[in-house]
């Protein structure tokens, strides 16, 4: 089905985008593949259409719009606040069904007031769907990685746990596996005497020396990869961890946090109760959460259809805080959005640039609203 045909014209989408105050941006269908593979990981390779230029550059058909829009923003040397609207086809490999999907959305880049920008993003996404003729009930699920990060840091867990947990956040299965693994004590690794002795003595300088020697022999000393200091630190952390029993209370607290779900109006209170009940300092994260909700009310977002799920996130390390999905009552995702404050520096921006955006799946909207626009 061609959704563009279902909507009376592509011009309608452009009208909606301009009514929402977004400037129109066109990005090429053919994109360099590296920024996508670098940010999302190699698994993406199986799901995108790759090609190669005559000069050997790996290219792909754009699998989404956020990265191309951000690249354009960086490439144009933009420093201010811009809101880009787009519409077009994205391409993804699937075993069955079609490979082309029509998307439209808005990327809001460079607004330092993140509470306001977040609220505007969700408000725009809902208004967009309404303008497309989605009159039936939709459900919005909202998650916040910053709140999860506050819980993990409040628990004072070892650095390696923090890394592991924050990477697993957003993928329930991986997160469960990480929590299970953390419940088991890990013995110190079996290493030769020249490494074990300084490690057991917690003599970091001697350990770095011994490791440097090993790296030098292997020709890895200046290879640009991991150095002796990094290996020493992780090794010492492993020796420490082997002597500390897993923190059962912390794991139970984390599990209790991940089970929190609440209507948005009650979510901040639920988080406050959780923080107080567990003696965690989450004030900053909760204040940010509440400020955003306040901005949503100001922007006229109907928050009665929004609910918060503490375990909801995206397992991509450039999403930093808000994520949301607008679904039909049957769970079909019509639009998805989120804040990606880490993305622009990952793909080349010289300094940190905040960003938040959403995409609407036009084909699904057309099917859901019966194609009548």
């Amino acid at each position, binding site marked *: 089905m061609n959704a563009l045909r279902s909507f009376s014209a592509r011009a309608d989408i452009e009208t909606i985008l301009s009514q929402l105050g977004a400037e129109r941006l066109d990005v090429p269908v053919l994109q360099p593949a590296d920024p996508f593979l670098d940010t999302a*990981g*190699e698994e993406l390779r199986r799901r995108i259409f790759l090609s190669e230029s005559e000069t050997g550059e790996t290219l792909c058909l754009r699998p989404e719009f956020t990265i191309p829009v951000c690249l354009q923003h960086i490439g144009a040397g933009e420093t201010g606040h811009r809101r880009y609207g787009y519409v077009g086809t994205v391409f993804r490999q699937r075993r069955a069904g079609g490979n082309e999907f029509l998307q439209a959305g808005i990327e809001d880049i460079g607004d330092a007031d993140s509470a306001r920008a977040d609220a505007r993003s969700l408000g725009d996404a809902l208004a967009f769907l309404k303008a497309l003729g989605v009159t039936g009930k939709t459900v919005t699920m909202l998650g916040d990685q910053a709140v999860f990060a506050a819980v993990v840091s409040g628990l004072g867990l070892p650095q390696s746990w923090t890394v592991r947990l924050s990477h697993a956040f957003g993928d329930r299965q991986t997160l469960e596996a990480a929590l299970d693994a953390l419940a088991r004590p890990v013995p110190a690794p079996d290493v030769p005497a020249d490494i074990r002795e300084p490690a057991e003595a917690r003599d970091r300088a001697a350990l770095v020396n011994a490791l440097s020697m090993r790296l030098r022999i292997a020709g890895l000393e200046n290879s640009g990869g991991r150095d002796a200091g990094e*290996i020493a630190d992780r090794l010492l952390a492993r020796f420490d961890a082997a002597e500390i029993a897993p923190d059962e209370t912390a794991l139970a607290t984390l599990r209790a946090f991940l089970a929190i779900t609440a209507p948005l109006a009650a979510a901040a209170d639920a988080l406050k109760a959780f923080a107080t009940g567990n003696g965690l300092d989450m004030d900053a994260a909760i204040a940010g959460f509440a400020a955003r909700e306040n901005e949503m009310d100001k922007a006229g977002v109907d928050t009665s259809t929004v609910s918060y799920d503490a375990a909801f996130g995206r397992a991509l390390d450039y999403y930093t805080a808000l994520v949301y999905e607008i679904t039909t009552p049957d769970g079909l995702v019509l639009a998805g959005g989120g804040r990606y404050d880490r993305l622009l520096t990952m793909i080349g921006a010289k300094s940190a640039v905040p960003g938040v955006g959403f995409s609407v799946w036009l084909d699904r909207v057309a099917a859901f609203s019966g194609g009548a626009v």
Partner: protein
Amino acid sequence: MSAPITIAIPSKGRLKEETLKRMEAAGYPVEPPKDARTYRTVVANHPNVEVAFLSASEIARELGNGSIDLGVTGEDLVREGLPDSENRVTRLAQLGFGHADVVVAVPEAWFDVATMADLGLVAADFRHRHGRRLRIATKYWRLTQTHFSQTHGIQLYRIIESLGATEGAPAAGQADVIVDITSTGSTLRANFLKVLDDGVILQSQACLFAPKRDGADAARKQAIDAFAAALTP
């Protein structure tokens, strides 16, 4: 008599010699090609069996296309060279030669990394520390992705294509770790690399494969089964 059965066997090297030896012992002696330059021949006492000599990786591809009835080749080549191989070919027999493991190997000096989970942690904050993703040199793209992404949930790495001397990639600064084939491990050790505890992706050996297809007639099926049974060690 039904249409002949075509079996593809490797066209050179140890795999070829071992396969010919095994077929002879199984009662399927392969006649030398009438002309040394041709790549097709027959089996002496089985007029309905045709033999095609193909390169080991072409055999994997032809099995996928279903253009041959049977093929002897390394399992690594089938799993790597043929997308969705589980649903496209059947492994009829492991032949007990051509052993080689496809493994994940890291520098020996990474004493903090013994398992895939350890490597996952290193990968997770690699960009933060080094401004780039962890690099894996390999020619086994598909096996690497399956092992890292699907089996161990590790996403944050990049694959660097390496078509030879892969074990030298870390010292050359091209990659941090490698996925490569090893039979004794001596090349890895010589390059100061070690295999992770759960780093064996595939224990490969020469195998007899057949394309999965429906509606083969009974006589052919019987002949194929008989051949597979004879070849099984």
